[in-house]
């Protein structure tokens, strides 16, 4: 009956020397190199520190029931304005032409997140005032709830021009998250930097209300865009305009700055894997140097008696 090696253990041979000796210096240098060299190699090969990271999330989007709708006619003096921008109500005339507005939120999978926003508007169009373009600014409440908690007010801007008298616009689009820089993404802190109302225009502002809102929004680092998927225009003047805008809320791609811990977590395996290789390499070198007596050191073998 043969014997099987079930376990093996190494015998430790120690090499000892004085502190101020070539052997000690050699050991210190190799140990330092073992620590530093992997770092240099890992760093110089790029991607050692994680600078950016991203995730996908379907945000919680709700309509704030704020909106501003502008229908331009050929005659600029007859623009039709509907909406609720602060400081605008007093100036709106003929608002009775915004006959009916409907905003619906649809949650198809019953997960508490709106999957589609539907905006519907019935507009009375006076004779000889054919509409040449429409602009909708829809206020929304936007929340990210997983990795980077964020709560902000955002806008869905839909712009469409008509080249002929129209009686209906059917618009289908996706909401997109657009960021000009990474989110700071601090743990357990909800970023509410942009949680301020956007559809406000100070009465004393000399600017055009829509310019003011859009410029204000444009300055943000984080916005939402409306991506047109398809549109359909119903032509022919009927004395009214029906606007149907459907905005889907898909999963959005969000970039953020990783935290220090996440950076370390990313760097550690790279560093450690190189340390292991270098450790083995330097151990071989040390074994060679000491076993061949290239440097002066006392060899202590366990089965030999020491003086």
């Amino acid at each position, binding site marked *: 009956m043969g014997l099987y090696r079930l376990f093996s253990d190494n015998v430790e041979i120690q090499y000892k020397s004085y502190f101020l000796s070539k052997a000690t210096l050699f050991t210190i240098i190799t140990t330092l190199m073992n620590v530093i060299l992997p770092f240099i190699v890992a760093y110089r090969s790029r991607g050692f520190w994680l600078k950016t990271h991203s995730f996908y999330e379907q945000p919680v989007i709700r309509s704030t*029931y704020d909106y501003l709708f502008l229908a331009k006619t050929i005659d600029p003096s007859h623009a039709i304005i*509907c909406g609720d921008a602060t400081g605008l109500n007093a100036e709106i005339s*003929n*608002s*009775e*032409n*915004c*006959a*009916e*507005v*409907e*905003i*619906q939120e649809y*949650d198809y999978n*019953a*997960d*508490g*997140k709106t999957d589609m926003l539907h905006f519907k508007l*019935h507009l*009375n169009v006076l*004779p*000889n005032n054919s509409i040449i373009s429409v602009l909708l600014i829809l206020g929304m409440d936007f929340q990210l709830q997983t990795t980077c908690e964020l709560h902000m007010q955002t806008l869905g801007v839909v712009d469409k021009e008509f080249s002929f*008298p129209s*009686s*209906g616009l059917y618009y289908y689009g996706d909401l997109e998250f657009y960021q000009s820089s990474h989110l700071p993404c601090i743990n357990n802190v909800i970023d509410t930097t942009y949680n301020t109302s956007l559809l406000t225009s100070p009465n004393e502002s000399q600017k055009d209300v829509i310019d003011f809102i859009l410029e204000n929004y444009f300055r943000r680092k984080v916005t939402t865009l409306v991506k047109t998927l398809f549109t359909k225009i*119903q*032509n*022919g*003047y*009927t*004395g*009214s305009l029906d606007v149907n805008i459907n905005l889907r809320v898909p999963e959005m791609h969000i970039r953020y700055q990783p935290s220090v811990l996440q950076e370390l977590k990313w760097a550690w395996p790279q560093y450690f894997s190189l340390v292991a290789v270098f450790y083995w390499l330097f151990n071989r*070198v040390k074994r*060679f*140097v000491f076993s*061949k007596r*290239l440097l002066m050191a006392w060899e202590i073998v366990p089965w030999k008696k020491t003086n």
Partner: protein
Amino acid sequence: MRLLTYFAFTLLSVVIQFCVMDFIQEKIEHEENAVYLNETTKGKQNSIGILKDYTHNAHALYYRLNAGEIKNVSRTKYSNSSLLNYPFSTTTEPSFTVYDMLYDENISVADGVSTTETFFTSTELDNVTEITLFENTSTTTKPEIIEKKTRYVDTLCYCNFMYKQCDINCCCDDDCSEEENKLFRRCRTHLFVNVRNQWPRNLLTCGENDVSGIFGNLFCIAKTNLPDKRAAVPQKFFERVINDTFVWHNNNHNTDVESYKFTKNLYRNGDPVWLLKNTSIYYIDFPAPFVNNYCSIRRPIKFLQNEETQCLVKLMELEMFRILKTIDESKVINIANNSLNSTAMNCSNLHCTNWTVIYCDEDDCLDFNKTLHEPMCTASFCKNIAFRIEYAFYVYDSKIVNATVKLFAKNIPIAIQYITQKISVKFYMGNTSSERIIKLSGTPGYITGLPIITSFTESNHTNQFFNSDHQNNYLTYPDNKHGLCVKTKNTKKVLLFGLNKRMKCKISIRYISSSNATEACLNVQTHINKMLSVQNKVYVSPYGNPNNVKDDDWLPIKLKSQFIYGQLYSKSSKIQCYNLQTRVAFIFTYAVLSSSIGQVENKLLSAKVDGFASNVTFSTNSHELSTVITVDINFINVNNWMQHEYAGPPHLNLNLPKNFFFPFPSNKECHSYKPNILFINYLCIIALFVK
């Protein structure tokens, strides 16, 4: 020293391994070439030159395999010494030559040695001799063959576009003299973009001859894992390809159009509703949109199938004209049991039903009177234009016993080019008029889009709902007609469950100059409240079916009154009304009764109406007090979102002792000393293991 020697050797081996290997390989290949191309050194150079040019045309990794093949091809093929003599020194662009040879199947060259390469399929030795002829390279050049060479060269010169005229910068143009060639700054050395199989330049700088940088080709990938496509071998005729290939479709869809043929049978679900005109029988249809919302097609009205459509139409093509004509000429026919055997097509055999036409204006509905209700136009507007048409068929015993057409008419300005006409077709079982049918809004919970059930009485709401005229069972608010608020019997909006809406319109009330300002303001508020149906307390049913709902469960709604007063500014002819409620918001909260998705039943939990007071200034110049009122409707779902249940983990039926993971016994009396002993025991065991 020994250590350093070891290091030095290791480094050297690494350098040999990674840097010199490529060089060695190249060397070997070149030597191989030299073996094959022994006979003409010039030819070898040319071959390398070809590849040099070839690699200068940057290519993707995939094509590097082909580059190797090119090398092999040249190596094996040009064993005939004359073939290798490309006219490099004259006017032919070598890369073009090889390129074209490789990718143009029309050009045939000799394949002197039998190889596996299949780029060259024929062995026209004539052409081989043509290419050999160069003044500089071959000493056996025969002058008479130069013409042939020139002709061949011409065919490959991609910049020679002028016949017998020198093309600028075209070095391969034979029409150019040597002096002219010297004038050219740069010879065109590339193919035109539209030449086939042209790959983009400078994508990859790796190449056998590219030794720029310290490492040269060290980091260039010499091979890829792409399949080695060396040749396209035509396959045999495969019949299935015909069916698998997409081709133009046959646009003749006549076979798809449903064709209906009158048969003497009782009506079945889906049969068209037949009409009898004199002796001919045809089915009734209605307009429908096809692509651009215009009423461009017609669809038959089918038995027991309700329809609702909306489309644009020109004034002259209004459906009402067609309907009035149809009603005059024809009758709805039914097949009775006694008429099955008869062949005659008339009302004596068939059961005929006369049309009932009802004309509805904004206020009321009347029997259609041709003289009164005939549509007509003046210079500025058209009157009695039916924009909404409702067909109602009452069915009893598979027979249509009553056919009613309701024409909802209005006056429209002549400037309007198109009219949106709505057409609905409804079938009712029995002979009860649709006005008398009580319509529920849920079973029993509300269904989105159906009206909110309301009671305007103080008590006995459920009985009132089932026994009264159903017109008063719903909460209504004014419709917007050209900006003005209109609330009449036929023109009004019904508050529908689940739809968040905002409506705006302008009210206008005659101003009586004798009354004081406060009275005028109160009058305006009363008018607004009446328009919004909130002048009195109203009760809302919590369910869409109020059957068995107690009076206490009905939800009361009452608009809080404000202290309204007015002030007259006679100088500026204005009245200022304070605390006028021009905006009213209905806010309903509801909960989902059923948890299953798709069969949601909603129960109203609360209902309230809020008025928003504001100060409004009216001008009295026009003797009318007008202001814009707003109705807001909001439905709030108080349910949390669905809690998704997941399958639980597998259950292991293990009966472990109670203290298996917990060493402390439940007996409190022993609590003081026993745990300590056990804990020490555990520690001892752990310590033993560690040691």
